[in-house]
């Protein structure tokens, strides 16, 4: 056994030796140029965010007298003002409610339809898929006016439900598309087995197919949530009551040319993007890979 461990260690050593050779070879001039270029790019990406973060702690006068210095004393007054008077607190809550409900419904309804298309056997399944896929090409602007007038008649304007319905609908095509792929790739034997055990369709769907399609659900859920969390146009048109606005709308209203207190507006911007940044930092690899997988399949 010792010998085995020894050879394993040796193998590891060899590997690291290889790596070192690799690294030595890597530090050529082109590599250095690549790194310099990438670092500059990274600065272009991070500097604006850092600037806003820094300025959001300053007073209005400091922004103009010492724009790039660190703030003299750190206060959270700007943040509390934006959170309460800017109504960003309630807006965050609204955004959260809308996004979570949309997420849950789109996952269930979307994967049910995907199961119907990918697994159930009927003649129109291909046609149904085409029907849903055309939805991906349609810009939301085209349905804005009919939806707005219809919802006004139904009492759905100024109502979070009036946002959830279109968000849900626009999330369905991508959900159905990705989940159908997952369900189609599952082995037939699984379902045959379940059938012989006497499971009904709903058991097969909820207890076998859905748990196996977790990765797909994660990807589509992520795309749905991020997309809806950031959506501005529909929310701006459908909701005019301050207490029901979502985060991007309240932010766009609070931060505008008529407000002259810059530091409060900067604090508001930070409030709006910091939750996403924190979540992104924690799960960046899964998020990036997941979103790419979704886009590739789309």
């Amino acid at each position: 056994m010792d010998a085995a461990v020894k050879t394993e260690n040796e193998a590891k050593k060899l590997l690291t030796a290889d790596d070192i050779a690799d690294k030595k070879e890597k530090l050529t001039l082109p590599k250095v140029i690549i790194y310099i270029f990438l670092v500059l790019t990274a600065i272009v990406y991070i500097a604006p965010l850092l600037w806003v973060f820094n300025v959001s702690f300053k007073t209005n006068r400091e922004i103009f007298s010492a724009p790039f210095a660190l703030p003299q004393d750190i206060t959270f007054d700007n943040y509390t003002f934006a959170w309460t008077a800017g109504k960003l607190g309630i807006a965050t809550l609204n955004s959260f409610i809308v996004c979570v409900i949309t997420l849950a419904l789109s996952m269930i309804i979307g994967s049910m339809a995907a199961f119907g298309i990918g697994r159930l056997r009927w003649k129109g399944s291909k046609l149904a898929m085409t029907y849903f896929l055309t939805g991906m090409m349609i810009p939301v602007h085209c349905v804005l006016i009919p939806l707005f007038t219809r919802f006004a008649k139904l009492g759905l304007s100024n109502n979070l439900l009036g946002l959830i319905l279109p968000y849900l609908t626009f999330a369905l095509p991508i959900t159905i598309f990705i989940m159908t792929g997952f369900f189609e790739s599952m082995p037939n034997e699984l379902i045959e087995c379940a059938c012989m055990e006497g499971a009904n369709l709903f058991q097969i769907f909820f207890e076998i197919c859905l748990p196996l399609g977790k990765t797909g659900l994660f990807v589509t859920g992520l795309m749905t949530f991020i997309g809806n969390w950031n959506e501005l146009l529909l929310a701006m048109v459908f909701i005019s009551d301050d207490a029901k606005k979502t985060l991007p709308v309240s932010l766009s209203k609070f931060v505008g040319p008529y407000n002259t207190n810059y530091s409060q507006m900067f604090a508001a911007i930070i409030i709006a993007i910091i939750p996403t940044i924190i979540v992104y930092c924690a799960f960046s690899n899964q998020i990036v890979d997941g979103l790419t997988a979704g886009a590739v399949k789309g």
Partner: protein
Amino acid sequence: MDKLLRNKKAIVIFMAPAFILFTLVLFVPICQSVYYSFCEYKGITAPKFIGLANYKALLTDKTLGFAIKNSIFFLVFSCVSQLIMGLFLAALLTNIKKGRNLFKNIIYLPCVLSSAALGLLWMFIFSPKLGINQLLEKMGVEGPLWLMDTKGFIILPMWVIAFVSLWQYVGQSMMLYMAQISGISKSLFEASYIDGCTKPQTFWHITLPLIRPMVATAMSLNAIGSLKFFDLIFNMTEGGPNHRTEVLATHLYQQGFKYFKYGYASAIGVLLLIMCLLVTLFINKVVKTEQYEM
């Protein structure tokens, strides 16, 4: 089992919710929108059929001229710039090992952030007395009015907004190309090195042809995205100065929900829809060629 999977009732239950939602919230409104575009419809009164009058009005609308010009500018700019920058960054990142994930994640970050918030952020950075101009002032240069200048065929604010949109979305294209490049078999590259290819040659003759299908996908994503462009412009310039940075989406919003010309705004919507469909068809016809074995 076959009987179970062909159960008509089950099929209806599984398909109905999505189908009903899709039809009621997407397809019926689209048809209505096309109908409204032929109507005089100002919100309070019922829509009244007036034939092609809205479309005729489109032809003489000066703001719409700006909007179409700007939308096409965004379309071309974002397709070209994202293709070049995305491929370039993807090529650089696939060539390094250390820090690849870090750089990848940093460049992708703005894609998941709210473009409304980022638009406001950049609006301040490019505002007359803050951000970049403060930096320029320190260096003794007087900065231009980034978002208010109106000189030239494509005015400065359009370039600024185009830059910001490139900054925000290039991560998406980069990731798509990276995914495709890392899917190419290593033996192909080795073979080309043995045959004496340099790295740029390999990129040109092996990588590029192999990722062509992905170029089509990424480009149509960019193209549709740039036609739908709303948040950044709305929060950076609101279509100003003097409607010079208006695009189709902002013009539709102004006409529909500021002046309540629903019929006219619907005509703009139909125009947008047609442009989206045409561009997608065009890109898929031109760029997508045969798929290679990888």
